């Protein structure tokens, strides 16, 4: 499998990826947010499909999800909004959500739709490796979709190697044991962890997420890795300053 994600990862520079919640701040902002982020120089986008019970998310993403659902966002709606997205967006696109949404839409129908729209990857934190391998890997691959796995500081080397086998783009390194939006910054412990995993010489690239909020944390996170993903800090900025100020946020990162 080879798509826009692989091409982006093959470039020399570090990758800045932004997570945003679809249908937020208003229902029809999805495309505008995407275009503005691309034009501001962001390398990759994670389109957050909001879920009523986002177990891995902290308050910021929970609140944006609740607001987006109230606005009327759904899988169906998102797919409608993404019609023709490849006419204007050229950077890699990843859909991130919770597995129940896929299950209700139909896993194959969901993947097929993603493929038709030009989506490159999927992140479902609550779809575990074993079940993915057993039941869904074939479907994802049939539609040229990378499934991105998460690892944490507690994940064993053995398990990381397994994920490295099964994937062929990047591994999503969760920076600290926490839900999204932790604000603590990175200390020695995180730096050691980033370094430790980078020394494993995996075939997949490493991209760090959770807790990246500014230039300093972005640089720390990418010192030993290929890139990093910003979610809560971006949503906070968007909530406070609106869509038009997105370029200001991106400038503060690099």
């Amino acid at each position, binding site marked *: 499998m080879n798509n826009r994600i692989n091409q982006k990862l093959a470039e020399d520079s570090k990758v800045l990826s932004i997570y945003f919640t679809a249908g937020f701040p208003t229902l029809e902002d999805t495309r505008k947010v995407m275009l503005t982020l691309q034009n501001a120089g962001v390398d990759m986008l994670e389109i957050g499909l909001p879920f009523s019970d986002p177990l891995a998310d902290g308050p910021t993403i929970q609140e944006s999800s*609740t607001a987006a659902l109230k606005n009327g966002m759904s899988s169906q709606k998102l797919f409608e909004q993404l019609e023709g997205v490849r006419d204007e967006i050229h950077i890699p696109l990843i859909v991130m959500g919770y597995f129940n*949404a896929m*299950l209700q839409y139909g896993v194959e129908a969901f993947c097929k739709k993603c493929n038709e729209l030009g989506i490159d990857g999927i992140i479902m934190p609550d779809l*575990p490796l074993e079940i993915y391998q057993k039941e869904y890997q074939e479907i994802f691959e049939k539609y040229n979709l990378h499934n991105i796995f*998460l690892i944490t500081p*507690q994940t064993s080397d053995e398990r990381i190697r397994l994920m490295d086998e099964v994937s062929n783009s990047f591994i999503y390194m969760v920076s600290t044991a926490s839900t999204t939006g932790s604000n603590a910054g990175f200390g020695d412990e995180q730096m050691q962890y980033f370094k430790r995993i980078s020394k494993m010489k995996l075939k997949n690239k490493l991209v760090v997420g959770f807790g990246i909020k500014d230039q300093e944390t972005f640089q720390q996170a990418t010192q030993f890795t290929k890139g990093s993903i910003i979610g809560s800090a971006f949503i906070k900025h968007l909530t406070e300053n609106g869509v038009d100020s997105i370029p200001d946020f991106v400038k503060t990162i690099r």
Partner: protein
Amino acid sequence: MKARNPYLADEAGFYGKFGGAFIPEMLYPNIENLKQQYLSIIEEESFQNKLNDLLKDYVGRPTPLYFAKRMSEKYGAKIYLKREDLCHTGAHKVNNTIGQILLAKRLGKKRIIAETGAGQHGVATATACALMGIECIIYMGAVDIKRQAPNVSRMKMLGAKVVPANSGSKTLKDATNEAIRDWISNPENTHYIIGSVVGPHPYPDLVARFQAIISKETKAQLLEKEGRENPDYVIACVGGGSNAAGLYYHYLDQEEVQIIAVEAAGKGILTTESAATTALGKEGIIHGSKTLLMQNPDGQITEPYSISAGLDYPGIGPMHAHLFESGRAKFVSITDEDAMQAGLELSKTEGIIPAIETAHAFAIFKEMKFKKDDVLVFNLSGRGDKDLQTYIDYFGF
């Protein structure tokens, strides 16, 4: 080798197509560790001895199997009540928390978290933590904190910290989300004591094993009273399904015993205010388990409603989803109104004020007729002290 009981969890934690562990990677090390160790630990003789001593001298087991004479006369069947309301702390929940606290200690955990709806599981967890001198944090929906105030005070008196869950419907589902998020953020020193047969494998199996004492005792007690181990019916209310799992456990493979599960219909299954999962739900994933749950076509989980905080949950444990789909159990849903009347009736007929959760089971007589010689065992899962204010407001005492 004995044939596998088709109603219990397989190796991967599936009951038919339901169950499993659909968890974010952050929870994997904890869940995996638990999965690897729980069976061997709880089967150790020293573990069993400690557990049985505490169940006997601290919890007050065995709980009586009481023949309810006046109810029996009224409804023309032999009605027995398994008196879990007489357990220390007033409900069956303590059977599980005592077991899990011993397990947590064996796993070397120093901090306990739990969710609670009615507050019974919160109180039972706080009690077990006080007993062992372990730090205890309870997540409880803000709505439930209001409607189960006496239990909030009890938890605090027992030394637990009660943290309100303010997301979603501010009830049991949301408290469970918060507890899981806490576990994600505290992956090393913390054990999560789930209060029902829900959540990722191995929890449904673990909790069912600790509650199975209910049917183990029932069998022996019924043999003494009726000359037979098996009743014609076992009847229990289902929130997540732990008291029901306990009463059903040793009867699951006894096909002549009919299993009745009572869900909360809230204001009725045709309204938007209900918690009747099998009537209104569809297969999906909630709290790490594939089961039946109330959700919209997009897969967003519905905010449930029931007058009883302990049944106000949009899912049921995977064991129960399988019992429903396989037809092994019959599911009935009971409205707030019928449950409240049944609670009043049991109070006046037998002198026992039940928890509102439990009262749902006793409304079964509105829905089903029994024969004169039928032997019925109800799980009297908890007492109604915590619900007094709700009863007072409802009936205007």
